[in-house]
């Protein structure tokens, strides 16, 4: 991977139905979604339904935007980050995806840092945010580590991804962990 330039300025905001076309940029990309448990979207209508039925009512789902230099394009999402509470009220699961055009610039790392700085105040009772990463997903593992997540274990035969049972590395960020940067 390239050495990163100075970290991008990333902001998080709620999604809007109007973001569907920007979202298609990563949601329809088999490469950007290769490690996701969900399949790449092929239909704009299906993605619109996903935004309406899952994203908008979700307790914590954010559009990742690059702070522009005043241009409108600065508000266009280049990725998404979500933190989903589980049946255990102290624990929530994080997912992040970035459009391929913006890989290698530290966008995911910056989005993760913003997330852990905000989410514990937003989600009542949550003290642990965990992320499951495919053992082969080196880029995501690096982003989590740079954002201050602790690697805890390899969970064997833990997730079905694209029809295959995979080992997953589990990372966590606890409410008392130090915020980096």
């Amino acid at each position, binding site marked *: 991977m390239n050495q990163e330039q100075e970290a991008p300025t990333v902001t998080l905001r709620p999604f809007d139905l109007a973001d569907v076309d920007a979202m298609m940029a990563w949601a329809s990309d088999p490469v950007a979604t290769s490690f996701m*448990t*969900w399949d790449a979207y092929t239909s704009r209508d299906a993605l619109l339904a996903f935004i309406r039925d899952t994203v908008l009512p979700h307790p914590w789902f954010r559009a990742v935007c690059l702070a522009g230099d005043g241009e409108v394009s600065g508000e266009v999402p280049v990725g998404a980050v979500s933190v989903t509470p589980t049946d*255990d*009220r*102290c*624990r929530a699961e994080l997912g992040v995806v970035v459009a391929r055009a913006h890989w290698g610039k530290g966008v995911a790392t910056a989005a993760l840092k913003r997330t852990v700085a905000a989410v514990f105040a937003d989600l009542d009772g949550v*003290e*642990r945010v*965990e992320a499951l990463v495919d053992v082969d997903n080196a880029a995501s593992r690096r982003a989590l580590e740079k954002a201050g997540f*602790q690697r*805890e*274990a*390899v*969970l*064997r*035969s*833990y997730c*079905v991804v694209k029809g295959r*049972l995979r080992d997953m590395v*589990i990372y*966590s960020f*606890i*409410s008392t962990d130090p915020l980096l940067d």
Partner: protein
Amino acid sequence: MELQQQGDPPRAAAEPTGEVVTLREFMASDADAEAFMSWASDPLVALFQRRDAFEHVGQARRYIFDHVLPHPWYRAICVGSGSGSGSGSGAAVVVGSISVKPAPAEADGRLFMASVGYRVARAQWGRGVATRAVRAAAEDVFAAWPWLRRLEAVADVENPASQRVLEKAGFVREGVLRKYIVLKGRPRDMVMFSLVDTDRVAGGR
């Protein structure tokens, strides 16, 4: 997530019991409800569980009816020969319970994971009962559920005896998950263990 119970007995561990450990289904009987109370009413056993200790046998009776009997896989742990119905000397006695809960199916409807939890009456601690029960349960569910690929269990970081049970039963210690589960109102660090189907091929542990 099924949770473990077992702590250290106050004295050095006794020799493993030479008696047979078997598993059977619970019955909606007074005898099984009474036996249930031998661990379910013990605050020390309940220490590492979500549930509070029971105070009267009616709670055990209701728990067997509402939770145990409809459960996908819940067994009584019996020590001694016989069926554990409590009749006659030397007959099997119910000393604990063990349960295996399938994880919810993934979006594609696929089942592949389950979690195991167990509880043993304090008088039976330190004799290898839980270890043998866990081994027997693992054998049973991997045989009964061909879809099963991963059987997991968590033990509180402050429960080393339970961690040893899982290790001796052949589970692999994967790591400590911080503030993983809320027990008695507080998030607890838990050690995660697993047994995957490939651990169990001939020659495996």
